[in-house]
């Protein structure tokens, strides 16, 4: 008898858990569905009560307006390309520089190595928000205002990236490196031909982390970019949201366009996204 009772309770608990998880999933997905459906509706439908959810017509005009802009300059297209360029170049630079540093710190013995490592790791304590004003002054002094340099160079390395690559390379087989050395390969040659090709998983994780943070960045571009043609996607959306002639549907269309690349990246490389959030905790995949 008691056994049956506990079975009953655990079934009820089970059903409640399923309901909770499902309801929560629906609540989380509602704003995304809203963004997507609203991007196909004229403004008067979006703001009607109750919200219609299913677009009556595919109002493609929103996407046209989002791309064309209120002034017909198509500057959003250029801004999207800017975002791609900045995020890609930063990611490639970061994986190269962080892995060469991680390699130098993991596979060689020399005086001061641990000191260098500690100094690099200590920069993790410095939040970007605390140094953005001096950085802004440096960039202005270099004459980099309104250039790609300003958007890329200060983010070409991260202490976390060095840490990630070093941890990975500590377990890299010495035999591979020594074999190449005996074959007469140069140290730089060993790095590019032996170490890099065998370090793809942590590099992919690092590349995606970097790409996402550059794609997302608002505060820094806000400081260093003024001209419309140098803007990145977040800057454009902020401006587009402020403009008087922007209707809600076009704003959501611009948002959908901004989100599609990340969605594609996520669906094709899910493992590295999830892995990226776990490297902080040292969790295993």
């Amino acid at each position, binding site marked *: 008898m008691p056994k049956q009772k506990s079975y009953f309770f655990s079934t009820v608990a089970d059903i409640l858990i399923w309901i909770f998880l499902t309801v929560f999933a629906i609540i989380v997905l509602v704003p995304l569905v809203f963004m997507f459906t609203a991007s196909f509706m004229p403004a008067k439908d979006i703001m009607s009560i109750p919200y219609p959810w299913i677009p009556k017509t595919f109002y493609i005009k929103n996407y046209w307006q989002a791309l064309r802009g209120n002034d017909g300059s198509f500057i959003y297209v250029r801004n999207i390309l800017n975002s791609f360029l900045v995020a890609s170049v930063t990611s490639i630079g970061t994986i190269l520089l962080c892995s060469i540093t991680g390699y130098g710190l993991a596979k060689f013995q020399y005086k001061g190595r641990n000191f260098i490592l500690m100094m690099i790791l200590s920069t993790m*304590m410095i939040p970007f928000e605390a140094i953005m004003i001096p950085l802004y002054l*440096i960039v202005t002094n270099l004459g980099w205002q309104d250039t790609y340099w300003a958007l890329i160079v200060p983010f070409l390395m991260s202490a976390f990236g060095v840490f990630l690559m070093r941890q990975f390379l500590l377990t890299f087989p010495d035999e591979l490196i020594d074999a190449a050395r005996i074959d007469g390969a140069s140290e730089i040659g060993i790095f590019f031909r032996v170490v890099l090709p065998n370090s793809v998983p942590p590099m992919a994780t690092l590349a995606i982390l970097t790409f996402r943070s550059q794609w997302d960045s608002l505060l820094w571009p806000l400081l260093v970019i003024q001209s419309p043609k140098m803007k990145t996607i977040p800057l454009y959306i902020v401006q587009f949201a402020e403009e008087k002639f922007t209707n809600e549907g076009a704003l959501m269309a611009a948002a959908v366009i901004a989100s599609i690349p990340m969605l594609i990246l996520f669906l094709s490389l899910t493992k590295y996204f999830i892995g990226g959030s776990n490297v902080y905790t040292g969790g295993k995949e």
Partner: protein
Amino acid sequence: MIFIKKKTGIEKKKARWGFIFTIPAIIFFSVFSFYPIINAFITSFYKKDLLSLSKPKFIGLGNYKYLIHSESFWNSVKATTIFTVGTFIPLVIISLILAVFISSRKRFQKFFQMSYYSPALLSSVVAATIWLLMFDPRGLANQFLNFILNTPGKDYKWLTSSGMLRLATIIVYFWKYIGYFTVIFVTGIASIPQSINEAARIDGANRWQVFSRITLPLIKPTTLLVSVMAMTQCLKTFSTQYLFTQSGAPLKPIDVITLNIYNTAIRDHQIGRASAMSIILFVIIMVLTLIQFRVSKAEEVQY
């Protein structure tokens, strides 16, 4: 003899290369991390205007003294504290609950994780823009509350009354990061060996006992780590508050410290004061990060 000599030669050459490989990093972090933080520290003792060409004037602790008596600074401290506490506590608790529930399922684990994670894919600006429309007086947020609380036609003033505006920024942030932390917890729980759970079940422990006596103590380090991470991230929040105020919401209730630094430096041109605030933010985050380092070291649980 010759052999030994040659070997040390190779070792020396190797050591030199190891150092050469770290040179780019030394230059990079000197220029883009150490110099700026030292510069911010020094500038915080000066009265410096962004546009003025005259030499900055040394005023000692003047900027800090100013901040202590500044209403705007304390307002920012209050806004940041309300936002941080109001966001990271629900984030940690609910992501933990979700992760425990997901881990207890035999099917659809991936589906739920991916659904909760999906808002994290949007950039902060896009997330804030979507909610900006949903918080419109005619928007979905009012429709939802009116439906649940049975108050047809009431406007909850999401973007105008200060309490609701704070809640609105908290909701945006909570929504964007809930899945991110859930995924971390799911991984933490998955690393607990199945055999421990099974042994407990065989000994007659019920579900609640397994959770409270086994799961919870074993993922305590993950919980601490997630708490510190969530807290530091909340302290640095900017995008949502910026977009909301740009779209006409009142600044005061959501004038978080980062937004205040930005406005003080760029709108008011007060570089000295902005630097003093930066240094205060730096000290708080440094303390939290040190805790995070300690915790991640202690995290290596032996099963």
